[in-house]
């Protein structure tokens, strides 16, 4: 891993190194550079869908068809997926790779984002879904690489919560 790489370059390279071919997202400002470079990379099938639980359905189908997939969403999108996690991904043992751009903390300006952020880790913990909050660039590649391997080996989803400490987050314009 090149130490001069950005967070999104590290994620893209790590997905590729682990044979992940599919990236489905609901757009997010912080993820924009990753989304752009995934679209530009012919090794990935990348597209937006209308809702986050739809993305989980798509990667579930892809996994069953033999293709590894990741979903990208922001914190508020996570609030729409507990049913898909609890009734599909977890009981069916699908190694969905879930990347969440964290809002609602470290300078959040929208109360709604702050509240939904508080629900995220309790939901993941109550379902025993492995989750990592990533704050440091030097740990990012290790955490993502090892966690993808664990997800596949143990047939279980994993969630990567990308802190504003890593990405810069979204800042209040005023």
């Amino acid at each position, binding site marked *: 891993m090149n130490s001069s790489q950005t967070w999104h370059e590290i994620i893209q390279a790590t997905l590729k190194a682990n044979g992940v071919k599919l990236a489905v997202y609901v757009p997010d400002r912080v993820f924009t550079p990753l989304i752009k470079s995934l679209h530009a990379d012919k090794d990935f099938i990348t597209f937006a869908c209308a809702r986050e639980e*739809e993305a989980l*359905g*798509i990667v579930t189908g892809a996994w069953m068809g*033999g293709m590894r997939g990741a979903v990208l969403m922001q914190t508020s999108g996570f609030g729409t997926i507990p049913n898909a996690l609890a*009734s599909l991904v977890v009981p069916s043992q699908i190694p969905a790779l879930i990347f969440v751009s964290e809002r609602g903390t470290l300078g959040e300006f929208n109360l709604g984002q702050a509240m939904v952020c508080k629900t995220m880790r309790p939901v993941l913990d109550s379902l025993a879904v492995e989750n990592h909050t990533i704050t440091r660039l030097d740990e990012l590649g290790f955490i993502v690489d090892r966690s993808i391997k664990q997800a596949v080996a143990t047939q279980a989803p994993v969630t990567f919560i990308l802190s504003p400490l890593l990405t810069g987050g979204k800042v209040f314009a005023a």
Partner: protein
Amino acid sequence: MAATAHNAKIMNRFELTKRLTSQLKRDEAVIGGIGNANFDLWASGQRPQNFYMLGSMGLAIPIALGVAIAQPKRHVVALEGDGSLLMQLGCLSTVAVVAPKNLTVVVWDNGIYQITGGQPTASASTADLVAIARGSGIANANWAADEGEFDRLFAEALKGGPSLVAARIDDKPGVATTDRDPVRIRAAFMAGLGVKR
């Protein structure tokens, strides 16, 4: 004119499911949506390439899309009810954008949330699911006027996609109940698709 004022015959889901599966000669994958769609798929014969979705109402089409992307040489069919489709209409626009040639959506429209007590869905009065599919970008979306036309539309659908075939159906319940074992269902489906994890 009400948007649903098409004159399609009211048919039976189990009978149509049997007609549908009888056309599957190339190990096509079939994703049965929650409830009666997958109960009747189960009852029609447990093909190794069938997936029975036990929860996650509304996600049969996204799951089918994922399978279609992963296995572009295999045709994939999603069986979905009207209530489930209304819960996740955005997925139709995603299917249209991705435009997989190997995906067909079949909609069973009985105009009710059958399992929860028969409450009317919007398709019973004002929503036309084929018009919604076309408006979402799936140009090849059609109501089947009767069983013969259903057979013909589905045969055409298997030649290329994306496509959507909708059938008005009666309020008869599913004729059997799926085994509720998600791990076994998933593992059997993957084996049926020739996938090792």
